[in-house]
């Protein structure tokens, strides 16, 4: 075993035992297939989703929560947060609406996670 990891993809938090076999990984302890991909990613290049919230345009506290459509390399977290901080989405916003497409060229989008109508 090379590494012991906790899968963070869901709250079950399976404890994964990862071993490197040639250029492949052998994973034990995962309760679903997502754990396999997570283990490989986590050892080679950890990815994370992120969430924050920004006020709607023209308001101080009508908050629109946002997240990414997928994980990004960990070192991209703060640069992406800085991009999101510049956002002032116009009302109305719908859940799932893309607010920044392909943010900083990462291939994932920033989407609204709530519906807020005028």
């Amino acid at each position, binding site marked *: 075993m090379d590494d012991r990891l906790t899968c963070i993809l*869901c*709250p*079950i938090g399976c*404890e994964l035992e990862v071993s490197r076999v040639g250029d492949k990984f052998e994973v034990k302890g995962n309760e679903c297939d997502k754990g396999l991909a997570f283990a490989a990613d986590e050892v080679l290049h950890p990815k994370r989703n992120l*969430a924050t919230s920004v006020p709607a345009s023209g308001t101080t506290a009508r908050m629109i*929560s946002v997240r990414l459509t997928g994980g990004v390399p*960990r070192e991209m977290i703060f640069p992406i947060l800085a991009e999101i901080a510049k956002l002032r989405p116009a009302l109305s916003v719908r*859940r799932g609406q893309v607010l920044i497409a392909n943010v900083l060229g990462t291939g994932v989008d920033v989407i609204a996670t709530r519906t807020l109508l005028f």
Partner: protein
Amino acid sequence: MKAPVVEERGVVVIGGGPAGLAAALGARRAGAEDVLVLEREHRLGGILPQCIHDGFGLFLYKETISGPEYAERLAEDAVREGVLAETGAMVLDLTPDRLLRVNSAGGYRLIKAGAVVLAMGCRERTREMIEIPGTRPAGIFTAGSAQNLVNLQNLRIGNEVVILGSGDIGLIMARRLTFEGMKVRGVFELMPWPNGLERNVRQCLRDFGIPLELSSTVVEVRGRDRVAGVVTARVDEFFRPVAGTEREVACDTLLLSVGLIPENELSKRAGVELSPLTGGAVVDETLMTSVPGIFSCGNVLHIHDVADWASFEGFEAGRHAAGFLVCGAAAGPRVRITPGENVRYVLPQAAASGAAGLELSFRVTAPARGMWVTARGAATGASYYRKKFARLVPSEMQKIKIRKAVGEDIEVACHG
């Protein structure tokens, strides 16, 4: 004076969070015609609208989404399937014969329910705070109220923060405040193990180099008008601070994440028997409390770390509440289900004698590796369940299913 008009209803659900909305759906799907959810806030979804991080919905919606998305989807499902949901409606009182006093937009009113589902969620514990000596300056928040201020009200709560307790909300907030440019000095946990989920320790603390100090606590708060620092210390095996280990940590904000307590004021008024182990109602396998026709689910029954499980419990409670409208409560002999070695609690605490396929939820008292979980007959010693678990921790609720019919009291234990 005229007697007030009493509104007659079928299934009434108190609380519109993930458990309550699911209970309403469960009741509709089981054929109840008239299902009403009463929610005191102006938005459905319970605690979830402020839980903007992802990690919800993997079991119910088969994808991981954020709290607000989960709440909206479940509320949309409920409305589409004919549930009546009323926001701004606070239930003030509940009697054993299911009369509710409600304060709502239209004013004060009385509702008589055929069946009631309790789904009021929980509140944050602050007792530990009261025991910390020192001043009471501004800058002390519970983790959940800080989450509400930051995520829903766009407020900056401070610059440098210490977190007491390693509950999930505290861990999530450590990351959230780091995102907001605050400096998180450390998380201090009394127990020798973290109180929150392992995934949160990894992605909220370790990713950002935030220290987690186990077996330690805050012994003093300093500052006059605003928090200026705290004194931390290590604790011994009896949780007493160890002299000579005190350390002053400068900060202007202290967050408390020291546990959640089921919110059972209404349950008490209705005469529902509560368990000292869970802080929630004592229920049978239909999630019915000691008061016939009153059911309980979600965080008001026992604290859930996964919203999906609160919803699944809601579906069941709602389904049985719909059944109660038609058939009333089942009579007959009951068996008791009790926690044994290294098990903090088991739910349900009772079941109809002879019930098969019982699903039990439990938590261990202390972390265990490679241990057996067993269910044994109290009278005969017969084995009803036996399985080896690679890893069990108190922060994660477990579920087991007993296939055999259970005709005697049983004890659930975790041992070598």
